[in-house]
């Protein structure tokens, strides 16, 4: 790869000298030889600016040779009669060296700037991550410590219903906390590229089914409608990851819309992909929010409940992108929000027909 780009530099060196030579031959009848030298100098400058030192020096040497052979008397030989042309040659070489050094140092500066910018971004993500963790972990930890210590210290004096309520809240908070930690880890792994996607043929119907089974308790008070065409093609994806992506969208609905909200899960095949949609008819997201929703640590202003919305959606988007799809949100007629993502389609796999003799 690197060798190739270096070769390209040398090739352009030849091209530049060739072009300068043609221009020089055209100019020759009417212009002074010194001006032709300027054209060669231009070629040297251009190559030195665009490529590394090697091609720049090559251009200078070639330019000197061509200029000497074709234009410096006696023409048609490499002999130099007038000593002043030696100065021209030296200047050409010096220009090549000086410019390529300048360009190199500018390039180094730019690379340094870029790596500083990446560092700053990493730092920003890290602090947002810490803020998010401390916010989303503190409350459940406080609830767990409080409820469990009540149980441990005065469990016998509490009535059974209260005891059960406290114990249940410890369980729920612990479960949510564990899921949040899993999401933070997942986002980190997605960001650092530590996730390997394990593609296999999967059915979007089955993914929908298993997400709904996993989230059954949390979506119990919502009205979930599933619309899947019967002939939905199979997709080659990492089903576990896509399950997470879809799960995050549905969890979002569970968290941020009120009970009895209608949630519609749909999948529509198109020419080269399948669009998976989770729609709710709760209204509430303003137009400018749509893109921000997917930001890493954005906390939805929607009804102010829950938290960590952004993390779920950012993970969804990262997973979908890993698969070569897109994820976005948009308003739907009737005052709801649609979260959509696409999964690319591949040529359908073949399956041997079943013989009756089997």
């Amino acid at each position, binding site marked *: 790869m690197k060798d190739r780009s270096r070769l390209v530099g040398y090739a352009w060196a030849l091209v530049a000298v060739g072009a300068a030579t043609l221009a020089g031959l055209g100019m020759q009848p009417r212009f002074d030889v010194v001006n032709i030298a300027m054209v060669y100098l231009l070629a040297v400058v251009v190559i030195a600016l665009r490529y590394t030192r090697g091609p720049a020096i090559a251009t200078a040497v070639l330019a000197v040779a061509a200029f000497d052979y074709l234009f410096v008397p006696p023409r048609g030989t490499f002999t130099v009669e007038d000593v002043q042309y030696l100065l021209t040659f030296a200047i050409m070489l010096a220009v090549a060296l000086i410019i390529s050094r300048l360009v190199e140092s500018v390039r180094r500066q730019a690379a340094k700037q870029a790596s500083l910018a990446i560092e700053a971004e990493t730092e920003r993500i890290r602090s947002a991550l810490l803020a998010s963790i401390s916010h989303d972990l503190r409350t459940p930890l406080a609830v767990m410590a409080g409820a469990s210590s009540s149980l441990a210290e005065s469990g016998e004096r509490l009535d059974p219903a209260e005891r059960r309520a406290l114990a249940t809240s410890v*369980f729920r908070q*612990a*479960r949510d906390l*564990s899921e949040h930690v*899993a999401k933070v*880890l997942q986002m980190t792994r997605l960001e650092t590229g530590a996730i390997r996607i394990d593609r*296999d*043929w*999967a*059915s979007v*119907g*089955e*993914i*929908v*089914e*298993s997400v*709904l*089974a996993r989230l059954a308790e949390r979506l119990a008070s919502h009205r979930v409608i*599933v619309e*899947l065409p019967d002939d939905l093609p*199979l997709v080659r994806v*990492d*089903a*576990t990851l896509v*399950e997470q992506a879809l799960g995050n969208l549905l969890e979002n609905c569970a968290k941020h819309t009120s009970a009895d909200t209608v949630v519609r899960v749909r999948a529509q095949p198109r020419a080269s992909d399948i669009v998976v949609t989770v729609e709710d008819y709760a209204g509430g997201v303003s137009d400018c929010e749509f893109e921000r929703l997917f930001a890493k640590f954005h906390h939805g202003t929607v009804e102010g409940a829950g938290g960590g919305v952004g993390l779920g959606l950012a993970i969804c988007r990262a997973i979908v992108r890993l698969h070569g799809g897109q994820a976005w949100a948009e308003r739907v007629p009737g005052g709801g929000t649609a979260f959509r993502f696409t999964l690319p389609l591949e040529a359908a*796999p073949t*399956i041997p027909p*079943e013989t*009756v003799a*089997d």
Partner: protein
Amino acid sequence: MSDARSTVLVVEDEPEIRRFLRAALGVEGYRVVESATGRRGCIDAGTHKPDLAIVDLALPDLDGVEVIRRIRAWSPMPIIVLSARIQERSKIDALDAGADDYVTKPFAVGELLARVRAALRHAVRPASGGLVLHFGDAIVDLEQRRASRTGHEVHLTPVEFRLLATLAKHAGMVVTHRQLLTEVWGPAHASDTHYLRIYMKQLRDKLERDPVRPAHLMTETGIGYRLVPTA
């Protein structure tokens, strides 16, 4: 409680996790044997002859999958695996190595107990017992190769029957893609997952009340399938 005094071996290195497992299993009437290491677990499995083993996958001395292999080498006892969320791969390895089911940490005790009950029930009344399956509106006679739903005859192809029979052999428990493909289509097709996607859809379309949201022929995303019989 019909499983009363069944012995359950718990191979888990975390004492706090052993503590609540001991409490929960004890309340249900099981006798609990605890092993804090994989090697100890393999020995205890031989000396205590438990009816079921619960094995943590992340043990300090021996890989949980290896513990399962060693127990499986001589015993058909049901094995349930405890795995962390990030151990997706080793969970599948454990199931392929002979574990019967899994629970992902953190789990609700009720979930684990349900798996324990299903596994013990299965161990008491293995494969040959359940030749006629009842689930939801469907009745499938695996021996006569006849199936019906809401009283109407349903035609199942030979492959569909074989797939259903394989799931039924492990009723209530998860069966991995690899296990199903190997048993139904043969070892050469062990990674042709799309066969399963297509045939499971056909089975659901024919036997489930709502094929889109099945109640019995369940998907375990990334792992396999589970036939949940009517309780």
